[in-house]
């Protein structure tokens, strides 16, 4: 039963609960009209303390497509935060008006903290600094399910900024709960997967390398990520690392025919635009699945999926 629950990190849900969200997403994709009024009369608070296009739009589009409405902000300077209000007070106030809240914040652990102040309103973490981004993980799982038939027994290459990449941390922890998944972590040594993630994995299930060329032929899924300027203190260090990996047509020739390329977007230089026409490039489909999976999540947390 997911009604009334928070989603702060993917570990908050059991695999069968995640499966139930995936199944609902499948149903919504098959019959979007049928779900277009299930959230009628419900309000989603969209609290974005740092810039976001994709995540915010996909949440807001998801709520609107379910027939619900949205209140919120995408610039904390336009809210009471600029007056020095604590997060606890903000959430307690917003709970007076809203049925469900989505929060993105640059500080790690924010969503967990605010969930302690929400008595009945489900909180969805839409990204907290370099920590977690669980709805991107649901998006990724739905994409893998759609293109690879399921999440078990894949060799998953994860490439780019593995140190600050919150989407990657959430995805790796979640995929490690499925059967027979092996990881190849591909990063410059300055941006390696942090110890707190590696400690949660069976050492036999992953390898680490700095070379994408050497391993691309072994992968079933290649998950590319952007080196994020906003996570670096030093601009010089960012400029040095941002073009470390560029996936292009030449590299794709070494990959399996059935490998898929995923990316949470936005991309900068890490995937050349020439790769977009390759049928193995599924990142724009992934963005669309993001909206459907968020529709399924909102409907589940509000307990309205049966109102179809």
């Amino acid at each position: 039963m997911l009604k009334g629950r928070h989603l702060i990190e993917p570990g908050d849900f059991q695999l069968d609960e995640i499966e139930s969200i995936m199944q609902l997403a499948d149903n919504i994709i098959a019959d979007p009209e049928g779900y277009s009024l299930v959230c009628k009369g419900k309000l989603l608070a969209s609290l974005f303390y740092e810039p976001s296009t994709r995540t915010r739009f996909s949440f807001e589009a998801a709520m609107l497509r379910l027939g619900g409405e949205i209140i919120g902000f995408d610039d904390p300077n336009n809210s009471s935060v600029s007056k020095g209000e604590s997060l606890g007070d903000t959430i307690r106030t917003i709970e007076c008006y809203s049925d469900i809240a989505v929060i993105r914040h640059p500080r790690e652990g924010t969503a967990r903290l605010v969930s302690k102040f929400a008595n009945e309103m489900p909180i969805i973490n839409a990204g907290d600094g370099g920590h977690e981004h669980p709805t991107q993980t649901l998006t990724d799982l739905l994409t893998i399910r759609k293109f690879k038939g399921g999440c078990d027994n894949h060799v998953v290459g994860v490439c780019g900024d593995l140190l600050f990449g919150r989407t990657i941390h959430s995805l790796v922890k979640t995929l490690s709960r499925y059967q027979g998944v092996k990881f190849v972590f591909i990063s410059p040594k300055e941006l390696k997967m942090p110890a707190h993630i590696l400690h949660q994995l069976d050492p036999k299930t992953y390898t680490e390398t700095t070379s994408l060329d050497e391993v691309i032929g072994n992968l079933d899924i290649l998950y590319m990520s952007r080196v994020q300027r906003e996570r670096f203190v030093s601009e010089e260090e960012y400029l040095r690392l941002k073009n470390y990996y560029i996936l292009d047509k030449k590299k794709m020739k070494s990959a399996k025919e059935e490998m898929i390329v995923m990316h949470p977007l936005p991309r900068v230089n890490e995937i050349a635009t020439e790769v977009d026409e390759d049928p193995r490039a599924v990142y724009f489909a992934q963005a669309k699945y993001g909206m459907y999976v968020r529709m399924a999540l909102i409907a589940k947390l509000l307990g309205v999926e049966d109102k179809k």
Partner: protein
Amino acid sequence: MINVSKLKKGIIIDHIEAGHGFEIYKELHLNDIDDVVVLLKNIPSKKMKQKDLIKIETDLQIDMTVLGLIDPNVTINFVKNGELCKKISLTLPKVVNGIMTCKNPRCITQYEDVKDIRFYLVNEEKKQYRCEYCDAYTTFIDEE
């Protein structure tokens, strides 16, 4: 060798790693109590070569959690009527509530007034704990 008279009642915190005695003294806020407190440092020890030791002539209850965090190898002797009545060895607590602070500069607890932050033991050897909010690993005291 300096001699300190035998304790009639109270607590002897023994086998403190040399150098950790003052840390324990501070964390137990022994400066704030009116009872007799003795901190001995760098005492020759057969087992440890050197050790620190604290004697407190008191009836106060002591929160063992903080001792386990600073130096889990200490032993605590409770003395009553001049006799040893109870001896306790410490281990690192599995969960610490409200004593530690997160050292991750990006953790929300550095910016909001968050009370009673919970930490979970993840690595006994390195005395590392995981913050309940940001999941970053941290230690109670900085090891050299």
